[in-house]
């Protein structure tokens, strides 16, 4: 699904060159649930940007779902992001003053899908994250956990090859965090490929594989022996609140 070979990202600031990533090889198979961990400055955010096709590597090859995306640029990257990647951000990044269902429709809008199909798929996606009764709410009228669930619905509505989550629980209390992780585990169970960037070890324990970054290199790559199971009933409480 994801194949990285010798990925380097070098930022040039005048004469000083800083290597954020110094030659990374990584393979993520279809259906995997991976956590990328590391202290700040370890290169995990740069890794996230490259994986999400928001940025391109200075050197190296990146095969996403069989296509080489390392050399793509501009509008081509927009199309790749639209078709292959679903994003979930730390700050939710929903459009303000816009209904939940319209937020979820957004990626399909840019994919050129018709209005009726868009609406029905958006509603189905919101129902799958337990927000079927909140489709006309605006982000301000939703709790943090609910906003993040809208963002997840937006990420999965296009049926992307991978779902990338950047610190998805960073702005949430522990209860909402668990309810979000429960959704990710559910998505993983139904066959989605999910990569989460986090610095919280207890969040990483919900995943099945942890890749640790330090100073632009992969320091460790191990399977999680007994992934913690997120409590689904917490989700029910969240909906009721």
């Amino acid at each position, binding site marked *: 699904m994801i194949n990285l070979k010798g990925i380097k990202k070098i930022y040039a600031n005048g004469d000083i060159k800083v290597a954020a990533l110094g030659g990374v090889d990584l393979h993520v198979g279809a259906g995997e649930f991976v956590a990328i961990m590391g202290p700040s400055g370890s290169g995990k955010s740069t890794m996230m940007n490259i994986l999400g096709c928001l940025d391109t590597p200075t050197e190296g090859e990146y095969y996403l779902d069989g296509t080489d995306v390392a050399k793509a640029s501009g509008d081509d990257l927009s199309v790749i992001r*639209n078709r292959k990647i679903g994003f979930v951000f730390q700050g939710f990044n929903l459009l303000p*003053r816009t209904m939940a269902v319209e937020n979820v429709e957004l990626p399909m809008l840019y994919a050129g899908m018709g209005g009726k199909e868009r609406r029905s798929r958006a509603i189905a996606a919101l129902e799958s994250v337990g927000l079927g009764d909140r489709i006309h709410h605006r982000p301000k009228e939703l709790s943090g956990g609910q906003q993040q669930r809208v963002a997840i619905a937006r990420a999965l509505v296009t049926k992307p090859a991978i779902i990338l989550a950047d610190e998805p629980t960073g702005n949430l209390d522990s209860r909402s965090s668990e309810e979000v992780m429960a959704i990710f585990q559910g998505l993983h169970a139904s066959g989605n490929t999910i990569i989460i960037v986090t610095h919280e070890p207890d969040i990483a324990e919900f995943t099945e594989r942890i890749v640790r970054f330090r100073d632009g290199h992969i320091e460790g790559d191990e399977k999680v022996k007994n992934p913690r199971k997120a409590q689904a009933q917490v989700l029910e409480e969240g909906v009721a609140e």
Partner: protein
Amino acid sequence: MNFLESIRVSLRALRANKLRSALTMLGIIIGVAAVIAMVGIGNGATASITSQIQGMGSNLLTISAGQSNSGGVNGGAGSSVSLSMTDVDKIAEGSAVKAVAPLSSTNAQVVLGSGNTSTSIIGTTEGYEIIKNVTMARGRYITEADVNSSARVAVLGPTVVENLMGDANANIIGKNIKINNVPFQVIGVTTATGSTGFQSSDDMITAPITTVQARLIGRKTLRNILVSASSEDLMQTAQDEITVTLRKTHKIQEGKDNDFRVQNQADMLATMQSVTQTLTMLLGGIAGISLLVGGIGIMNIMLVSVTERTREIGIRKAIGAKSGDILMQFLIEAVVLSILGGGIGIALGYGGSSLAGKALAMDTSISVSSVLMAFGFSAAIGIIFGVFPARKAAAMDPIDALRYE
């Protein structure tokens, strides 16, 4: 994303910020309304001046005495007293001439019993009735016989009658009025034309030129000769004829300047119209500047909007919006603002110029071309001043935009 979806996205963004959208439009609204109203009022003024000049008489040529130039001292137009009754008779022989009327005028105090008024006295002949399309309310106009016999008869305007007797419809026919202590018998009253102000045809007395010259002015010279050409096509012919005739009777040698001036009504019309059109353009131009300022207002707000919505742009790009989609969204927002503002401005400008027309008692006219121009102009302003902010938005890097706080 197709164009229709782009429009819907833009409209949604504008609705989300109603107050700001309205304030942004205000600049364009005022600009367009000002252009429409100013051009409308200007056109109205042109039309009203045109009708006033045309109302002075049909196919009218005005001959004025020229300048006296003795010993290098130029006395200015009318300072020479070169026109005489002989000229009038000669001009009347012209083939393209329908009617001729000499004109001498003075101001005098008019007395009837206990009433008195000051008004202008026109000395002329029966030709004046034809040239000026004078219509009589009561009695008759002066005749050739009156002129030949220097009869002390007078035709009064309705305002004069009102000033003398307190009622414009009072029976004044046959009464004797005193003009500068010279008794005149009133033989007729003209119908009201509604003209006011300086040289109103309602506030004047007409008498035979011979009587006016002998009894009131004491000179035999004329100030003007009015000529009505047989038809509009023959105006130029008549003008040429008059020039030739007068040069001959005045014995002006070849190569010397005329001592008289022939003015064509059409020339006057053209002069006045060019003046009012220049004024219209001036007013429209000033209003156009406010339109430009409105456009800059749109650009200003759009730039603020782009900065404020950096994160939104980042989100849209992250989930698949192409640069063109973002460009289109912001450009359409600017164009919608300017076109909507333009539409409201046209309505306001139309209302404003109608109100001004009522207040100034003239027919303002809004031409389709000025509406189309204002509309096209505001759309163009939206595009021109929208492109810069929209390009700025489209060029944003999604990573930086997402990180923007």
